């Protein structure tokens, strides 16, 4: 008992009657790294939000260092030495690092801010763990990896002995991940206890001492990690069945160039250059994977390719015809399909019915509309067909898109975008936030589209995914094309390019 930093017993938490956690037991040994493994929606984050005081459990007890505690708020959690780094960073972007830190603690100058003193102490902690954080930089100026370091630094500065990390590596390049793991090991040496929430098996195998698996809100089991534990075993615990990593066979070799763009320059929403002389060809029956850390111009590129954003300069041809800066409707009519990055704001109208989302692109077009009237029979028939074909789990077609799980929402978009037999498919982060099963389904559908002669561009921050489905891999960094690599390229090499290190790779001759 003495060596337990955290012990949670019988934790139950329901949202609107749905149990996100159902009698979950969890413990964390002092000075260890404990993995919390599960698919999206398995209840990992909910459990940790309870430990951090953001939610209160409906049932169950929490013991911290052997004492039962009622963690009523994050403040209480912090005072108990618990810190949490969320998946979506809890940092106010216009404020500086030190301002964000001061939000969480009492000022030593009463109602006035103690900026200078805090900044000095912060810099000291940053030096100790070699994090290289400047307390006075504004959050929006920092890269995602740096922001994560700010979060960890803040937690340690606040005196955290137990650190909860929610999907910390989702946003990191392979190199950054290694660095990050080094930091974790160093903190473990220091006697800190760490909970690592993840759905990546590689991480569990690499760094974790013990792992607890959750599925559908229930605890499946806890295991000490040793070489005898296999990935397959963990997958089985996590998904409840064996996941078949079977893809449709590649039935066609890439053909003629379908979509080609040359020297595209475009600005982002802030008016800053997002793409710099970006050129790429995509052929028929080919998947080009675009690898890169988020925010390096991928979104803007997809928007140019679908007519949603005007390029400042550059050329673009579709089947030989110049198409730069045409309106979105032009691309839709040319069978250019688009799976947008954010299904909540761009992909779906969340408060619309599923049926209506399904025909969103065809509103006013036959056969779904005649003489300005919606043809509900026709729409219903289409819905039934799509529902079966794409295995959409929904009560009925009149349900709001909001009420579906992420995976089923994505299936609605897939049905809409792939059912038209696209000639070009632009898929921006098509599996983000989906569980293993749903992600495999989406990738399968993308390969299917490819085998049906579509030219496909898949943008993803997930290297695994890129490697799985791409015929060629293009790497983008800071709006520039860093290079194009063949299928089966080395992860490390891609990682280097993702961080903008073109020359080094060239010199090393890789």
């Amino acid at each position, binding site marked *: 008992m003495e060596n337990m930093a955290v012990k949670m017993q019988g934790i139950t938490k329901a949202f609107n009657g749905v149990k996100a956690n159902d009698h979950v037991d969890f413990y964390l040994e002092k000075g260890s790294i404990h993995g919390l493994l599960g698919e999206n929606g398995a209840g990992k984050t909910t459990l940790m939000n309870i430990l951090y005081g*953001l939610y209160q459990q409906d049932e169950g007890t929490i013991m911290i260092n052997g004492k039962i505690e009622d963690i009523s708020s994050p403040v209480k959690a912090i005072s108990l030495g618990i810190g949490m780094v969320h998946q979506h960073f809890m940092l*106010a972007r216009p404020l500086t690092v030190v301002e964000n830190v*001061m939000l969480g603690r009492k000022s030593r100058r009463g109602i*006035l801010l103690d900026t200078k003193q805090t900044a000095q102490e912060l810099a000291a902690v940053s030096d100790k763990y070699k994090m290289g954080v400047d307390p006075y930089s504004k959050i929006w100026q920092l890269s995602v990896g740096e922001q994560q370091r700010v979060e960890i630094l803040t937690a340690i500065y606040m005196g955290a002995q137990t650190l909860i990390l929610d999907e910390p590596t989702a946003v990191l390049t392979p190199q950054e991940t290694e660095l990050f793991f080094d930091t974790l090991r160093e903190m473990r040496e220091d006697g800190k206890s760490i909970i690592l929430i993840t759905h990546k098996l590689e991480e569990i195998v690499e760094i974790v001492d013990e792992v607890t698996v959750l599925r559908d809100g229930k605890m499946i089991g806890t295991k000490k990690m040793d070489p005898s534990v296999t990935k397959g075993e963990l997958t089985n615990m996590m998904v409840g069945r064996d996941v078949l990593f079977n893809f449709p066979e590649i039935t066609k070799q890439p053909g003629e160039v379908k979509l080609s763009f040359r020297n595209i320059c475009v600005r982002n929403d802030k008016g800053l250059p997002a793409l710099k002389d970006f050129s790429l060809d995509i052929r028929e029956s080919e998947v080009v994977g675009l690898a890169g850390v988020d925010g390096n111009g991928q979104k803007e590129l997809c928007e140019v390719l679908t007519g949603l954003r005007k390029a400042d300069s550059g050329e673009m041809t579709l089947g030989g015809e110049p198409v730069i800066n045409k309106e979105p409707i032009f691309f839709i009519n040319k069978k250019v399909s688009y799976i947008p990055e954010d299904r909540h704001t761009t992909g779906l109208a969340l408060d619309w019915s599923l049926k209506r989302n399904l025909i969103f692109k065809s509103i006013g077009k036959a056969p779904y509309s005649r003489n300005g009237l919606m043809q509900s029979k026709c729409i219903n028939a289409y819905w039934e067909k799509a529902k079966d074909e794409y295995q959409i789990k929904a009560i009925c077609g009149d349900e709001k898109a909001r009420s579906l799980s992420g995976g089923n929402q994505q299936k609605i978009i897939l049905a809409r975008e792939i059912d038209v037999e696209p000639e070009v498919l632009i898929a921006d982060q098509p599996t983000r936030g989906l569980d293993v099963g749903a992600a495999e389904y989406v990738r399968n559908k993308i390969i299917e589209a490819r085998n049906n002669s579509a030219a496909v561009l898949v943008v993803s921050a997930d290297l695994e995914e890129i490697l799985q489905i791409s015929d060629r891999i293009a790497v983008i960094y800071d709006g520039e094309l860093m290079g194009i690599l063949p299928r089966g390229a080395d992860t490390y090499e891609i990682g280097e390019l993702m961080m903008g290190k073109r020359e080094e790779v060239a010199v090393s001759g890789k």
Partner: protein
Amino acid sequence: MLSNIFSLSFLVSLLAGTIRLATPILIPALGQIYTQRAGILNLSVEGTMLMGAISGFTVACATGSLWLGLLTGIVVGMLFSLIMAWLSITVRANQVIAGIGLNILGAGFAAYLYRVIFGIRSLPAQIDSFQQINIPVLSDLPIIGQIFIQHNILVYLAFLLVPLTWFVIEKTTFGLKIKAVGEHPKAADSKGISVYRIRYSAVLIGGAYAGMGGAFMTIAYMNSFTESVIGGRGYISVAVVIFARFLPSRAMWGALLFGLASALQLRLQALGAAIPSQLLLMLPYLATIAALIFASKKAEFPSAYTLPYSRLER
């Protein structure tokens, strides 16, 4: 006519008028900086000012104490904005709708109160309003004294609030918390800041300033209450905050711009300019809207602007 406009006395009176007319915009605008920085768009400033105007006037009438009237205006402004706070923060109602509804309530209620308390009369009830201060020598200085040192005490108080507001927002823990709940309420919550409490205080401060601005109109700028005494100043002050990108010093310039246009309009009318008075009356509003159009594009709104917060929403 032209020679009249370019005469020194015209300019002096124009600038003095600018400062005086800017005040009832500046006070509520400074208050709305707190409110809007915390992520709440309170469109009911107009109604709040009317409530402050009638209550301040009534109490000043009844007690003979202008300061008590001012205090009442502030308190009533806070009470009235408490409804807005409750609607937008606790009930999580749409802020635009709530604001518009409260404006109608405030305008109607103020007019009703006036009739109940003062009855219908041919001449409006009047009080002795705040008088301009008179500092020997200084107030008599040519030009400078006439422009800057012949106002009533509340004008100076209002302009003192500019650096004070800046200081609170930028240098105190309270200011940092306000910015945080407007920018990333979830982050603030996870750091142990009560989003509700900070947002309530931000709306209440805005209400206090609006109530003070309203009372200023009846007991310092004028000496009576009419139903149109606020005349859109509440709306303008909301706009000025956005024009000012939520910065107190810029809000001051915005208020002065409106003040200048108003003062100019009044003086042109008095001079009998050959422009229809209806058009002249539009001038301050047009000038402000034009300025807004040019400036607001660059405004970076707090990320959680007009968004209610709930911890359970994921």
